[in-house]
Structures are given as structure tokens and as C-alpha cells.
């Protein structure tokens, strides 16, 4: 992921940013994101995978497509070029792909998925959310909010506050989550809310814990 400012990519008339643009925005605020390269055709896709290193994830990349997994526009854990080519044929052949190119992404592995996000509340302004990620976000709704900007203490409290907070400890052979890195991520989401008026909402889901470090794997940025 290049560390350029997300400004130039922002907007362009669409109501959401593409995943690639979203990730670039987050990275610009210091949030670790999965390495990703945008590609337009199979050749570029192969080259990108080569440069990132297998295994990779391949996704259709378009601002209009937000539920990619459900639409069959995501293929994960592609271990070699043959896997990649097969996935490319499937995704590029799908009617749901709308011609925004393809995102080749580093395959982030970790047993723990968290969620973080931002919304604008009519009373309290930008608010940061943190909680259990992946499918548990919808199933358990184990999340907590704080108005931005967040202090370090606010972020640390949010981490303790969710019911499933043990997920952040050393569990089942996995190391404890690096609290400082997670605190920095939450504070950064708050800063985006404070500094980027044009952004209405952010979902980072999942935020995968790779080893002990959080990495934003899928991000959705909604514009006003």
C-alpha cells in the first residue's frame, strides 16, 4: 500500500470509496492495512501477486460493491498462480463485478477478528466504535462507542469494556494483542472523524489480529 495522502482518490462522485481507496485513507492516518495492489487484467494481477508474495486474496474492487463476500467477488488464500488464475476467471466473469479493477491483497492470517468504525452522531459528532468483528459484529453486537477525539485512556477503556474483552488476552496459544497498536488504531479512526468532514462513516471489518498486531483487512468508507 502506498503511503500517499488519500485526498486525490477521495470522492470522484461516488457515495463510497472503493476498498483500495478506503485502505489508502486509513494507511494515511497510520492504521496498518493489508498490503494491496490495484490491477486491471490478469497479467497485472499475476504481477501484483508475485510482488506481494503468495498466498494472496483477490477481490473485485469497485466503490459500488460493498458486500463482496456474499456476491462471490472475493477469493482468499490463493496459494499459487494456478489458484489465482482460476479465481480471476470466476470473479471477472461474475455479473456483479462492475469494472473497478481487481485488488490483490496480502493474505492476513489471524484467529481473531475485531471491528472498528466511525459514525457522525447528530448530538455528539463523530463517534468511534470498537468491538468483536467478522460475523460476530452482527450476531452479538458486542461493541462500544466514544465521541472523538479519543484519548489513549478512552481507547484503552473501550477495549476493556466489550463483553468479549478476553479475546484481547493471550488465548489458545495466541499472544495478547498489542494494546498500544490497537489504541493507536482507534485514536486514528477518531482523528479521521475530526479532520475529514466529507466522510460520513467508516467500517473496518475485520480488523484482524495478526500475531499480536491489528491489521485492517476490509474497509468501507462512506462519504456524505
Amino acid at each position, binding site marked *: 500500500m502506498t503511503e500517499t495522502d488519500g485526498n486525490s482518490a477521495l470522492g470522484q462522485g461516488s457515495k463510497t470509496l472503493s476498498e483500495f481507496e478506503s485502505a489508502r485513507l486509513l494507511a494515511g492516518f497510520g492504521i496498518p492495512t493489508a498490503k494491496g495492489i490495484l490491477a486491471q487484467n490478469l497479467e497485472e494481477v499475476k504481477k501484483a501477486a508475485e510482488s506481494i508474495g503468495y498466498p494472496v486474496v483477490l477481490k473485485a474492487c469497485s466503490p459500488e460493491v460493498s458486500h463482496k463476500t456474499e456476491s462471490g467477488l472475493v477469493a482468499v488464500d490463493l496459494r499459487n498462480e494456478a489458484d489465482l488464475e482460476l479465481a480471476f476467471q470466476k470473479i471477472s466473469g461474475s455479473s456483479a463485478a462492475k469494472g473497478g479493477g481487481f485488488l490483490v491483497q496480502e493474505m492476513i492470517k489471524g484467529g481473531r477478528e475485531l471491528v472498528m468504525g466511525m*459514525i457522525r452522531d*447528530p*448530538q455528539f459528532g463523530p463517534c468511534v466504535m470498537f468491538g468483536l468483528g467478522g460475523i460476530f*459484529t452482527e450476531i452479538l453486537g458486542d461493541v462500544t*462507542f466514544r465521541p472523538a477525539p479519543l484519548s489513549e485512556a478512552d481507547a484503552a477503556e473501550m477495549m476493556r469494556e466489550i463483553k468479549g474483552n478476553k479475546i484481547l488476552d493471550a488465548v489458545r496459544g495466541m499472544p495478547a494483542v498489542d494494546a498500544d497498536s490497537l489504541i493507536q488504531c482507534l485514536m486514528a479512526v477518531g482523528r479521521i472523524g475530526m479532520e475529514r468532514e466529507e466522510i460520513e462513516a467508516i467500517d473496518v471489518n475485520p480488523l484482524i489480529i495478526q500475531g499480536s498486531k491489528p491489521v485492517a483487512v476490509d474497509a468501507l468508507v462512506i462519504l456524505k
Partner: protein
Amino acid sequence: MARKLDSFFEPRSVAVIGATSVRHKSGNDILLNIMANNYSGELYLVNPKGGDIMGKKVYSSIGDLPEGIDMAVIILPAKLNSQAIRECAARGINAIVLAAGGFSEVDEEGQLLQAELEKAVKETGVRVIGPNTSGMTSTPHNFTSSFFPLGWIPRGNISYIAQTGNFATHTMRYITTGENFGVARVVGIGNKVDVDESDVLEYYASDPETKAIFVYLESFKSPKRFLEIARETTRRKPIILLKGGSTDGGSHAAGAHTAALASDDRIIDGALKQAGITRIYKYSLLILAAKALSAMPLPRGNRVSFLAPSGAMLVAMTDMCQKYWNLEVPALEESSRRRLQEISPPYIRMRNPVDIWASAMVNGIEFGYREGMEAVLKDPHIDAVVPIMMITDETGVPDLQFVVDLARKYPEKPIYVTFSAEKKHMDAAKAFLEPRGVPTFPMIEEPLEVLSVLAQCRKYMDRP
């Protein structure tokens, strides 16, 4: 900044617009309240009929009032209020309480009247509490604008902000007749055309008379300012808040998980935590926690010891402490435990919580509770002590002075007394203990629930 509300809380002179000699009307009850509280400033009465009320001259119009009156309470029909504001402003009155209802809380016509009020406030620059409020009480200044029959309101160190008329009316009537604690300031903010919850909070934050702030709110008029003031204040004074009702949801951007999960309640919860405001969900805690804080210091932590005359009470309360109240019932120092064992027959294994009944039966109620309480009050692992006192004619009615003495001997540790058995002895104990600075609670859960709230306040106060 905060001192801008001085004229409300420390008025040297007050005009009552709409004063009347007709009994049981608001314009008369307010006069009785003002007199019952020994207001010592100048009082001016206005009624178009003129004459005199209770021997006091009545001015027939606001225009006839002298210059330099600090504050006016306007008790007139809704449609006359904005004109009255302008007339008061013309006489140099800068602080006004509007009692009348019939504004935006009722119908469209009321909304129009309220818009007129807002215009009058803006154009004249006066400060207004209300409309639709019983107004405010300030005991250090012996003043209340309440038009609900209250009688004398005892002075204390608790202040209330309420988005409801009932705190300055019937809830206050309960406190003054059913409890033994007093208040410093009470404001019913009503429809908030001008003065809102943040203005009052700011005043209380720097008010030396206010030791703790209790809030009932249904909506925030200036949420960010309120939180900003609270965030700083809660490091010095507890703020305990009950949020009533919920505002319209669904105003967040659709399509994001975050938005779908962003209920008002979750966001308010996060906002209050960030500001160090202790959120409560029970109306009665607005009174019970106030009573506890009036008499006793904020506990230093959440470690409680309680003494009960029943195994079931020990077990059930311990369960509740852990499950609902975030209170610890820690093990005692060995020396404390040994002392407890000394005062008890050997067949009871003494520890925390304390099974005090055998000791009280063998050695007398007073001895058992006194020695038992002292043992745990001395213990460095204990922040607060709750004796559940069982008193009946047959088992003995102790002289409760020992509880008062223990409270004085260990002033840094709250003692909250609760009861079992005979109601008449509970009432007598309350009447004896509370005026002497020891709060009592009729139901055994109540003191622990209050401790839970206050331990949270302490946690916020000690934030890094």
C-alpha cells in the same frame, strides 16, 4: 462565565409577576414558599389589581417596579410571557424564571408562543429559566421560585438539575418530609429557551455549596459543552445522571455496520463514560445516592464488608455484589478475622461478609454489631461497611449511639445502615441516626446499590 447565573441563585431582590392572594393558586403558593424559607432579600409583588397581599404593597404593573431588581418570577398565562419579559428587561431585570406551561410541549400554538419567547430573550439579552418549570431553589440564599407547596427546604450540599418540574415540587416534598438531608441548589430547566443543562452544570461545577451533582435529563441541548464541563468537574465532584427517554434513532448513515449498531443508548453510554458521569437507571437512586453522599464521604473504592443476621442475606447479597454491582467482598486481614472470631461463639466461622447473629445473641445486639463493625472498619481492605441490623422488642433494642460514634471514629469510611425485622424500630433508628449523620435504608439491597454507584464515581474521580 459561570457567575452569569448569580442573579438566579443569589438574588438580592425578587419580583413575583402574577402574585395573588387567592389561596392554592401558583401565584400564592410561591409567596408562601418564599416566606417559609425566610428569604431575606427585597420582595416585590405585581398584579394588575394592585392593593396589598399579606401586608405587602402590590404594584399594578411591571413598569411601576423600581430599577435594579435582580430577578423576576413570571407566573402568567403563556401568551402574556414574552411581553412580560420585555417589560422586565425595560426595568433592568436580567434574570427571569418562567413558570407557565403551554408552550412547545403541548401543541403548534404553543410552539409559536415559544418562538416569540425566544425572540424576546434574544432581543433583550435577559437570562431565562423555563418556561414550563417550577424554577429553582437555592437554600444558601433561602430562596425558591417553586409554586408547589413545599414549606421549608433544608440546606445541604447536593444539587439537582432536572428536565422535569417534579424535582422542585413533589420529589422535593418527599425529600423534605421523608428524608433527613438537604439540598444546595435545584433547577428545573423546563423547555430550555435559554438557560440549559450546561449553563447550570457550569454554575454547580464552581459552586462551593455543591458537593455532588444529580441530573435527570431527557435531551441534551448542548451535548458537547455539557460533556466538556462534566469531564473536568467529575475529577472533583461526582455527577450522577439518569437519562430518560430516547431520541429518534435511524439518523445515522445507512449501509455501515457501525451505523446499524449506533443506537442512541450506546452512544450516550460512551459519551457519559468519557466524561466520567456515573449513569444510573433507577429514579430512586437520585434520592438514595444523594442521601448517602450528603452524610458520608465518597468511598475510596469498591471493597465492602457487610454484617448480617442471616446466612441467606450474606449469600444473596454477596451474589448481587459480584453479579450486578461491581462490588468486591474481600477477605479480611488475619488480625481483623481473629477479632471477629473472638467476639463470636466458635461454631460460627467468622469472615467477610460477617455472620453477626450468634455473636449478637450471645453478647447482646449492641456489643455484637459494635465490635463486629469496628473490626471491619479498621481493616485496610475495606472501603465501606453496611450493617444489616435486626431489631425486635424480644431480641433487644440497642442504643444506636455506638453507630454514630463509629462513624465519627472512622470518618473516611462510609457506614450505611439497613434493617431486618420490625418496622417501628427501623423508623426509630432512621429518626435517630440520620440527623446524626448516618444514612439508613429500609431495603437491604439499597445501601449496596448506592455503594456501587458511588464506587463508580470514585473510579472516575481517580482517573489518571
